[in-house]
């Protein structure tokens, strides 16, 4: 691989990382607004407020950056980067066409799970280093929630890997058949619920519950660092949606897959992203104990049942 190719691949991953979260964010503005009988942003950029998030970015970069006196200075200042960069890496490793990913690595399914796990550290660093009571309570909740939901999600991904007999996302999509939609359905539900919880989005937004603990771990953040946490949430939606599309919806499978396979991957991912937004509008926040019960008494057993089902089917009908 030449230096030029490495640069082109890196820049394309970076471009996707900077554009797709904004698309999802604008979709959320508009979809949520219309579901609630509002118009959403209409002014910025002229046409239906398309430039609203760009304007938000310009605003954030001009805001004062405050590090509280009591904060653990360097951990506090580094946390947004730790939260944000892993999602860039995950986007780079997700394939959109056969053999087409920015960073084509062999065990991409495991790699994506691993880097997404690092992103969670950013939240914990932010909550702990802020030396703020709201932030500490939020970080406690975040730690418990992220631990509990990471597990069923990993088990659900393991089930797909077993079904395909590979750890590479590329080969998983290659092995995908339409009847996997039914076969892997319990795992898909577990993955979607786990993903929304990992992103700390409603109905699983207990760690940042604004009516109780201001904004949880992010309470003390201002300006661009705060914006980075928001951006990482939307980048997270992009990663989880694309991952869902690739693992469960067959990625680029569809009519004319040879020519427009990437479009199918993107479309399926977009539909999942809209579902994630829809969940935010439709569901009230879960209480902390309900959250834990759901993870350990529903999702984990369901994920294990899916594993057994997958294993038996693979052995009986290899």
């Amino acid at each position, binding site marked *: 691989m030449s230096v030029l190719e490495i640069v082109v691949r890196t820049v394309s991953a970076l471009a996707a990382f900077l554009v797709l979260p904004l698309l999802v964010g604008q979709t959320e503005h508009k979809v949520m607004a219309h579901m609630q009988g509002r118009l959403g942003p209409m002014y910025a950029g002229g046409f239906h407020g398309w430039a609203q998030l760009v304007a938000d970015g310009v605003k954030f970069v001009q805001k004062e950056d405050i590090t509280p006196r009591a904060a653990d200075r360097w951990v506090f200042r580094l946390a947004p980067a730790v939260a944000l960069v892993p999602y860039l890496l995950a986007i780079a490793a997700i394939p959109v066409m056969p053999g087409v990913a920015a960073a084509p690595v062999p065990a991409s399914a495991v790699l994506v799970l691993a880097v997404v796990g690092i992103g969670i550290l950013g939240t914990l660093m932010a909550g702990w280093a802020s030396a703020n009571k*709201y932030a500490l309570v939020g970080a406690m909740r975040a730690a418990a929630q992220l631990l509990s939901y990471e597990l069923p999600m990993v088990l659900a991904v393991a089930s797909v890997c077993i079904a395909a007999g590979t750890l590479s996302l590329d080969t998983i999509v290659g092995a995908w058949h339409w009847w996997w939609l039914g076969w892997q359905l319990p795992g898909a539900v577990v993955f979607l619920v786990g993903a929304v919880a990992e992103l700390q989005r409603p109905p699983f937004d207990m760690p940042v519950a604004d009516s109780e603990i201001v904004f949880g771990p992010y309470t003390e953040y201002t300006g661009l660092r705060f914006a980075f946490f928001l951006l990482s949430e939307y980048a997270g939606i992009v990663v989880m949606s694309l991952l869902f599309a690739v693992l469960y919806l067959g990625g680029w499978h569809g009519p004319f897959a040879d020519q427009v396979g990437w479009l199918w991957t993107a479309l399926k991912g977009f539909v999942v992203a809209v579902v994630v937004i829809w969940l935010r509008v439709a569901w009230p926040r879960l209480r902390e104990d309900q959250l*834990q019960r759901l993870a350990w008494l529903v999702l984990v057993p369901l994920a294990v049942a899916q594993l057994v089902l997958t294993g038996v089917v693979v052995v009986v009908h290899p």
Partner: protein
Amino acid sequence: MSGYVVFGATVLAGVLLFLAAMVARRLLAPRAVTASGTTTYESGVDPIGSGWAQVRVRYVVFAFLYVIFAVDAVYLFPWALVLREEHLGPVSLVEIGVFVGILLVGLAHAARRGLLRWL
């Protein structure tokens, strides 16, 4: 292998992105450090005590459970690669079944004893 080179370059790009954004902020954002501006935020009133508060680490049980099941997950991924081998498939399926079964019994026990409540 070359995939990992791109992966490394992407790590670098991410770090550069963060640094560039911070430089832009330095150039554009105002700086007016005041004593009241850097106090800990407590909904507008003066903060009481420090950020160090006695908290019960409620999630410690979940953390233990997580570690146990995470070890389980570590064994599942390599298993995905060998399950289709003829002499290994059915035997390994039974073995994994026993392994996961023991974990599930443990989880049921923890639930029965009320350890999974957030109190």
